[in-house]
């Protein structure tokens, strides 16, 4: 489409007000009470000039361009800060206001460079537009007076420049950083003529607290804050609406192009998940899609010792087909399998699970949710009846108390975190349950009422203690429980036992009993209380138990089924929700239906023309175990870097090395490709045509900005492999795949590309009962009928500290890098995080003679690696923390085989380790060796 410019009506909508009738320039219009005169005029089709006002920000009234005259009122009020009243008559074009606007514009232009024709914003500048609209013909002040036109640019940020010479001090950037992003990194220093935008305390943008979300750039009406790519390439000319391929927020973006060249990604204001906001990754770090490291042609080799040889698609696919067929003939139908990608589209993932079930004839298919949110699937299905979060993101705006458990949303789900921070600034209260002091505990205008800084591995003990308080102090919502749930009496009796009390668990969890009681009373006493959680819940030996524990807590307090409440998993990957929805599990078909039920298999078998195995297949860890056993010989890996991201990677490497045929489909030659025999080039999100499903079950379109640089879509590749095995798919396009998904999956029954084009996005279930989707689940009743209370006894992890390994390692993510870093390490984001470091408390560091910045060995009983230490009080004594964005640091060299009992989700968050000073800098490569005997401290 041509460049999409969303209308900017100047001030936010006020949808909840009573209707008010206004006349603007003789035009009658009805708007909700609370609407500004500026917006009412826009609704009537009258454009009032403005510079400091923009629809995404609260009115400010500083630029004095939007002045109007109102019958019965003196003077010329700013229309942005003046709310409508019933019967108001407004005049926007009078000689008085026109003269005033011209005078104000003359003042602006007297202190502004006159390089419009060569300016990077030429044709896209609001100052230019407004100057034309108000009809300035002369600047009576001239240009020789004191001005700011010689001020130097700040080019420290790799993605955008700050040119103060062009700043009109409208404060949009400052307000965007406050209201939209919530970081408060910008301010206006000085007064009057001396007013200037400053980052933090007058530092460069790069050195300041700026998180490079781009909200200021988007808000800026001039070229003061401008994307580097626009400066270099020019103003874009056309738009493709698509969806970000980083995290589970699933931001909608306008890909803005000149021809086939992407100039910039701008968040789409009508995006259901993000409503016009973004983070540094989606906004700026998209260059990996056109990075020179991209592999664009298939490659094959006979052994992993050989060099790669480029080949044709026909040859590569033939080798895959022949190889898998041979392995099944020699070792049985269960000897091969596939891993789908949580970063690929629903259509691509569906195609691979269909390849496995139809082409391979088994259920050996799994996805990365195995290592992140598989406990969410188990826990929420068991308690509520469906494997997904209960709310939409907007729901947080109605929460009164927010529990954030094992999540760090400002780093891992930043756009959702901005919504949450806005609600917290409005007065909602926050409880953080995390071993680390995450940013949310205390950040600008946000402070947690309670930070339960628990010991890693004690989540279930803490949630049981919270529930104990609710039950024993009479805080249960008896009406909700009686009407909507089952199993309460048994659960309540168990949870009320003394061993679950905050006092009994304090010594083990490290959380003072008084804090637990206060947090429980706060949560249970709120009108609306919501739980948001992440991998700090799921990646534990009792991950599934903890999810059920949180569900129990929500049911017991009646916090399900309306806005502002719920149990909300913050799903990590852009399409991990979708890959689960699409049946990428060895035990479930699309729509979370067990393969063991003939009724579930029937429709698939009828359409696909082949029986589906009735028994579960192998999960990812089971595939690796079976490979070492010699019974699993071949693996198709779509977009997953298991050799870096999975735990106990020596075990993973050994398993991959043991296989006869490893096929990797990816963008780059990653760690896993080291073990591959066939490399099939994958497509980036800029080339894909399909859908992603985000953490709020929202299905968004991913539209191609360019054709596949590899020559094929990934679903076509899966189809050709299946055809080679005798089971052609026959899809003409990606839309047909979604049509098949809809035909076979009741929760997707109403979904189609046409529906998504019409609505923008839709949250499943989307079917006859909910033709435009379901933002809030379990409103009238739980999906399983009654919500089920499930007892959650605490069982300590087998991973224990010892004299040899006395510290506990937990892992997480940061804002600028994403997961294993395959994408973000190929962008300028490396400037913020060039390496993974180990956060260690000063007390632990002192005992070990470790200074800030020292190289240290990090060792567990399964392996050791080396990285730099960073002394930090964010972690308590006894706990160390690192990220896993760089393969060199090899954090998963030390993580163990322990996993969630129900789903085998790895226990990444609890590893007993020792940290010692390294005598010299990191040796080349990661030390993939068994740990040497640790020196007791």
């Amino acid at each position, binding site marked *: 489409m041509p460049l999409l410019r969303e209308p900017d009506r100047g001030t936010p909508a006020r949808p909840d007000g009573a209707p008010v009738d206004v006349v603007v320039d003789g035009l009658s219009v009805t708007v909700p009470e609370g609407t500004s005169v500026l917006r009412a005029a826009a609704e009537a089709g009258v454009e009032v000039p403005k510079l400091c006002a923009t629809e995404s920000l609260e009115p400010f009234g500083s630029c004095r361009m939007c002045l109007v005259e109102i019958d019965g009122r003196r003077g010329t009020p700013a229309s942005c800060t003046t709310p409508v009243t019933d019967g108001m008559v407004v005049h926007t074009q009078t000689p008085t206001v026109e003269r005033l606007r011209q005078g104000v514009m003359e003042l602006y232009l007297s202190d502004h460079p006159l390089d419009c024709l060569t300016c990077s914003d030429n044709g896209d500048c609001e100052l230019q537009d407004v100057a034309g609209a108000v009809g300035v013909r002369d600047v009576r002040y001239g240009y020789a007076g004191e001005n700011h036109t010689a001020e130097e640019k700040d080019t420290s940020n790799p993605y955008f420049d700050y040119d103060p010479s062009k700043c009109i001090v409208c404060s949009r950037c400052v307000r965007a950083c406050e209201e939209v992003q919530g970081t408060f990194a910008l301010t206006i220093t000085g007064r009057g003529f001396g007013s200037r935008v400053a980052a933090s305390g007058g530092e460069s943008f790069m050195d300041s607290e700026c998180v490079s979300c781009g909200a200021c750039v988007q808000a800026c009406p001039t070229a003061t804050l401008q994307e580097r790519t626009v400066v270099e390439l020019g103003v874009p000319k056309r738009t493709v609406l698509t969806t970000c391929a980083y995290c589970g927020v699933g931001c909608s973006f306008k890909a803005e192009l000149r021809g086939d060249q992407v100039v910039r990604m701008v968040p789409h204001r009508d995006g259901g998940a993000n409503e016009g906001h973004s983070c540094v990754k989606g906004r700026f770090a998209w260059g990996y899609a056109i990075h020179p490291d991209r592999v664009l042609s298939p490659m094959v080799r006979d052994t992993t010792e050989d060099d790669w040889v480029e080949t044709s698609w026909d040859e590569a696919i033939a080798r895959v087909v022949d190889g898998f067929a041979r392995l099944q003939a020699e070792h049985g139908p269960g000897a091969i399998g596939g891993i789908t990608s949580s970063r690929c589209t629903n259509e691509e993932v569906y195609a691979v699970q269909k390849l496995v079930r139809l082409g391979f004839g088994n259920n050996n298919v799994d996805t990365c949710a195995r290592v992140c949110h598989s406990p969410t699937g188990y826990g929420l299905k068991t308690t509520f009846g469906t494997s997904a979060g209960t709310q939409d993101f907007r729901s947080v705006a109605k929460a009164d108390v927010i529990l954030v458990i094992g999540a760090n949303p400002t780093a891992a789900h930043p756009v959702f975190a901005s919504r949450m921070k806005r609600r917290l600034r409005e007065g909602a209260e926050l409880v953080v349950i995390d071993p680390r002091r995450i940013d949310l505990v205390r950040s600008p205008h946000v402070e947690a009422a309670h930070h339960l800084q628990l010991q890693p591995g004690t989540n279930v003990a803490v949630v049981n203690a919270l529930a104990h308080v609710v039950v024993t102090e009479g805080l249960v919502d008896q009406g909700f429980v009686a009407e909507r749930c089952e199993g309460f009496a048994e659960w309540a009796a168990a949870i009320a036992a003394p061993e679950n009390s905050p006092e009994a668990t304090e010594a083990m969890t490290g959380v003072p009993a008084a804090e637990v009681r206060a947090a429980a009373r706060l949560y249970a006493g709120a009108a609306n209380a919501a739980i948001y959680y992440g991998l700090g819940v799921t990646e534990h030996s009792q991950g599934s138990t903890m999810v059920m524990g949180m569900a129990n807590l929500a049911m017991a307090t009646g916090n399900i089924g309306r806005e502002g409440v719920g149990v909300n998993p913050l799903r990590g990957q852009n399409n991990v929700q979708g890959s689960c929805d699409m049946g990428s599990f060895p035990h479930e078909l699309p729509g979370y239906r067990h393969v063991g039920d003939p009724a579930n298999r029937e429709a698939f078998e009828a359409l696909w023309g082949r029986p589906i195995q009735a*028994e*579960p297949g192998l999960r990812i860890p*089971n595939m690796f175990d079976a490979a070492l056993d010699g019974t699993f010989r071949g693996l198709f890996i779509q977009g997953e870097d298991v050799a870096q991201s999975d735990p106990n990677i020596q075990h993973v490497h050994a398993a991959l090395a043991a296989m006869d045929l490893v096929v990797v489909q990816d963008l780059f030659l990653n760690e896993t490709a080291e073990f591959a025999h066939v490399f099939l080039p994958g497509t980036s999100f800029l080339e894909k045509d399909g859908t992603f499903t985000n953490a709020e079950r929202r299905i968004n379109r991913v539209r191609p900005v360019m054709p596949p640089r590899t020559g094929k879509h990934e679903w076509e590749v899966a189809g050709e492999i299946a055809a080679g095995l005798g089971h052609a798919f026959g899809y003409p396009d990606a839309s047909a795949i979604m049509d098949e998904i809809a035909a076979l999956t009741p929760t997707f029954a109403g979904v189609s590309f046409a529906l998504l084009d019409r609505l923008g996005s839709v949250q499943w279930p989307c079917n006859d009962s909910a033709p435009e989707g379901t933002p809030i689940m379990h409103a009238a009743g739980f999906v399983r009928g009654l919500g089920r209370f499930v007892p959650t006894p605490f*069982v300590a992890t087998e991973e224990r500290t010892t004299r040899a390994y006395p510290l506990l390692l937990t892992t997480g993510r940061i804002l600028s890098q994403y997961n294993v870093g395959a994408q973000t390490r190929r962008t300028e984001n490396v400037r913020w995080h060039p390496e993974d470091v180990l956060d260690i408390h000063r007390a632990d560091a002192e005992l070990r003679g470790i200074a800030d910045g020292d190289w240290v060995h990090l060792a567990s009983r399964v392996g050791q690696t080396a990285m730099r230490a960073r002394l930090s009080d964010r972690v308590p004594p006894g706990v160390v923390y690192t990220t896993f964005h760089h393969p060199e640091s090899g954090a998963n060299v030390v993580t163990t085989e322990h*996993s969630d009992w129900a*789903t085998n989700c790895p226990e990444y968050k609890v590893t007993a380790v020792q940290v010692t000073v390294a005598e010299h800098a990191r040796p080349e490569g990661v030390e993939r060796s068994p740990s040497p005997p640790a020196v007791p401290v």
Partner: protein
Amino acid sequence: MSSADQVRMATDIAAQFRHLPPEDGVAAIVTHLRSFWAPSMRAQLVEVARSRPETLDPLVRAAAERLDDDGPAG
């Protein structure tokens, strides 16, 4: 995969149901294994129950014996 992996995972599962009356615990373990474990994995556990029952947690042993009663698929 080695039977040690199966035994370890089955023992973890049993620990979650130890709070139940033994018969209910065994039934819960059996249901979980049938729902989520591939037949090859169940078969390995059954083999351990046959050859080295004394090495198994009592709940795991009882569950494996019940799987054995199901026949080849476990």
